[in-house]
C-alpha cells in the first residue's frame, strides 16, 4: 500500500501548507473572533479601557470623529476607532448599549431623534433641551460653532425661472416636486412629512444613498429630482450651481456639531473636546470637507493637519 502512504505524506504536507498560508493571512490583525463591542460590559465606559469613538457613515463626520480621537490621544487617552456606523438609529443604539462611547453629532437632528415634537429651533434652545431629552447614560458637551445642517437645494436655473428661493415658495409651484436624499430622509421630521406640515407641500421622494454626494448633486443638475438634501458644510454649495432654499418656518433645527459621550466619561474628556470645539467653526468644517473631497486626503491626515495648525497637537 505504498501509494496510500505517499498520499498520506502529501496530505500532511498539503495540510501544513494550507495551515501556514492561513496563519499568514490571519496576521492582518488580532483575534478574528474578538467582538468589536469591547466596551459593552462596562456599560457607559470607564477610565480603564480605551474610549471607543464612533462616527456616522458620512465622510465629514468621520473627519470630526478623527479630530476628537487624535486630540484625546494627544492628551493621553487610549482610543479605539469604530467609524462609519450607519445612520443615527444604528449608532445611537450602539451608544446606548455602551459599545461606542463618543460620537460627534448634529444637535438639532439628535434632539428630534429623541423628541420629535420639540419646539426648540435655535442653537441655544436646542443645546439646553438636549440634556433632558437624552437617555441618562448619555451626555452632550458644549456645541461647536460649526453647523452642518440638512438643506434643500435646487439648481440656480430652476430658482430663477420659477422665482423660488425659499421652501415657502414651493407651495405656488405647479409641477411635481421630487425630493432626493438618503432613504431615511423620507420619514424624518425635516423630510417629506415636515415639508407637508410646515409648508403644505406634497412631494415625491427618491432615495439616493450617497448622503448628498455627487449622485444627489447630479440628480439635481439633470432634473431627475427637483431638489436634493445637501449638508450645509458641503464645499460644493459655494460653487453657485445650487440655490439653498430658505427655511422661514425653521423646519430644520440648528445643527451644531456636538459631542455625545457616555455620561461617566463626560467629565474626563470635557477639557480636551471643549478646546477642539472652541475652534471648530462652520468655515473650518467646510475647509476640512474640501481637503477630503477636493484634495482627496484621508481623515487622519486632515485631522492631524488641522490640529497642528490650531496648536492642539
Amino acid at each position, binding site marked *: 500500500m505504498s501509494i496510500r502512504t505517499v498520499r498520506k505524506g502529501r496530505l500532511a504536507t498539503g495540510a501544513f501548507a494550507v495551515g501556514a498560508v492561513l496563519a499568514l493571512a490571519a496576521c492582518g490583525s488580532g483575534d478574528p473572533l474578538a467582538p468589536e463591542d469591547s466596551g459593552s460590559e462596562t456599560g457607559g465606559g470607564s477610565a480603564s479601557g480605551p474610549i471607543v469613538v464612533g462616527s456616522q457613515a458620512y465622510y465629514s463626520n468621520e473627519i470630526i470623529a478623527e479630530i476628537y480621537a487624535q486630540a484625546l490621544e494627544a492628551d493621553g487617552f487610549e482610543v479605539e476607532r469604530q467609524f462609519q456606523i*450607519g*445612520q443615527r*438609529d*444604528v449608532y445611537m*443604539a450602539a451608544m446606548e448599549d455602551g459599545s461606542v462611547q463618543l460620537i460627534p453629532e448634529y444637535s438639532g437632528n439628535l434632539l428630534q431623534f429623541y423628541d420629535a415634537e420639540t419646539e426648540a429651533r435655535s442653537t441655544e434652545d436646542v443645546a439646553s433641551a438636549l440634556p433632558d431629552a437624552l437617555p441618562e447614560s448619555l451626555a452632550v458637551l458644549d456645541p461647536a460653532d460649526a453647523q452642518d445642517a440638512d438643506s434643500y437645494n435646487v439648481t440656480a436655473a430652476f430658482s430663477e425661472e420659477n422665482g423660488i428661493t425659499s421652501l415657502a415658495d414651493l407651495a405656488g409651484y405647479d409641477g411635481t416636486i421630487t425630493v*432626493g436624499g*438618503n*432613504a*431615511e430622509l*423620507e*420619514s424624518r421630521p425635516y423630510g*417629506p412629512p415636515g415639508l407637508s406640515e410646515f409648508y403644505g407641500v406634497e412631494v415625491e*421622494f*427618491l*432615495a*439616493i*444613498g*450617497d448622503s448628498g454626494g*455627487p*449622485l*444627489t448633486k*447630479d*440628480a439635481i443638475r*439633470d*432634473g*431627475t429630482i427637483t431638489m436634493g438634501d445637501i449638508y450645509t458644510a458641503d464645499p460644493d454649495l459655494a460653487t453657485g450651481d445650487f440655490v439653498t432654499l430658505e427655511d422661514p418656518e425653521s423646519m430644520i433645527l440648528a445643527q451644531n456639531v456636538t459631542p455625545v459621550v457616555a455620561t461617566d466619561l463626560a467629565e474626563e474628556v470635557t477639557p480636551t473636546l471643549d478646546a477642539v470645539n472652541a475652534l471648530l467653526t462652520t468655515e473650518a468644517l467646510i475647509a476640512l470637507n474640501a481637503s477630503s473631497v477636493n484634495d482627496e486626503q484621508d481623515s487622519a491626515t486632515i485631522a492631524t493637519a488641522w490640529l497642528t495648525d490650531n496648536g492642539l497637537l
Partner: protein
Amino acid sequence: MNLFQDALAWLTDPERSAGPNPLVDRIGEHLWYTLLALVVSALIAIPLGYLIGHTGRGRQLAVLGSGAARALPSLGLLTIFTLLVGVGNAQVAAIAVFVILGVPSILAGAYAGVEAVDRTVVDAARAMGMTETQILFRVEAPLGLPLLLGGLRSAALQIIATAVLAAYVGLGGLGIYIQRGISLRTYDEMLGGAILIVLLALAVDALFAIGERVARRAIGSGPTRSRPRPDRPEPLTTDQQSTLEEIR
C-alpha cells in the same frame, strides 16, 4: 418569533399600498431590472455558449472569465459605474452590473447543454447532410434547452438577490425597504423587504423549474438518456443528471 410577526404586520399594513413606497411599484421595479438584465445577459451569453459548446473550444477561458466576474464586488461596480455615467443613467449602470453577474451561469447552461448532446446523434445528423449551423440549431440547441433554462434560472436568482443594491443609486426596487430599515433600524420593514425578495426568488425559481420540466418532456427526456460517447468510455447518465441539478 416576534420579529416575523412584526414583518407580517408590516407587509399587510394598508400603508403598503396607499402610503409612500407602494409595494407593487417596488416589486415591479425589482422584476423589471431582473428581466432586463436577464435578457441582455442571455443575448450575450447564449451565442457565446453555443459557440463554445459546438466547437468545444474556449472552455478554460469561460471558467476563467466566470471566476473573474465573480470576484468583482457588485457594490463597487455599481457605485463606480453610476458615478461615471451619472445618476440619470443609473439604470444603465445597474443593468451592466447585473449582466456581469448573470452571464457566467447562462454561458455555462448554454454550453453544457450543447456539450451534453449525444455525439452519435450529432454524427448521425452530420451523416444526413446537415450543415454545422443546422446541427447547432435543429439538434444541439433544442436538446440542450433544459440545461440552458437551468443556467437562466441560476442567473435570475443571483440577479434578484443583487438587485437589492439598486436602491443605493436611486433606482428603488425592494432594496429600498432594506436600506431604509438599516438606516432607521426598523426591523419590520427590513425583514418584510427581505421576505418579499425571498418569495420573489422562490416564485421565479418555481417558474423556471416548470419550464425545465416542460422542455425536458418535449425533447423526450433528451440528454439525460444518452448513450456513452465513443471518445469517453465512462457512463454519462448520472453525470448528466447531476449537471441538470447543478445548474439550477
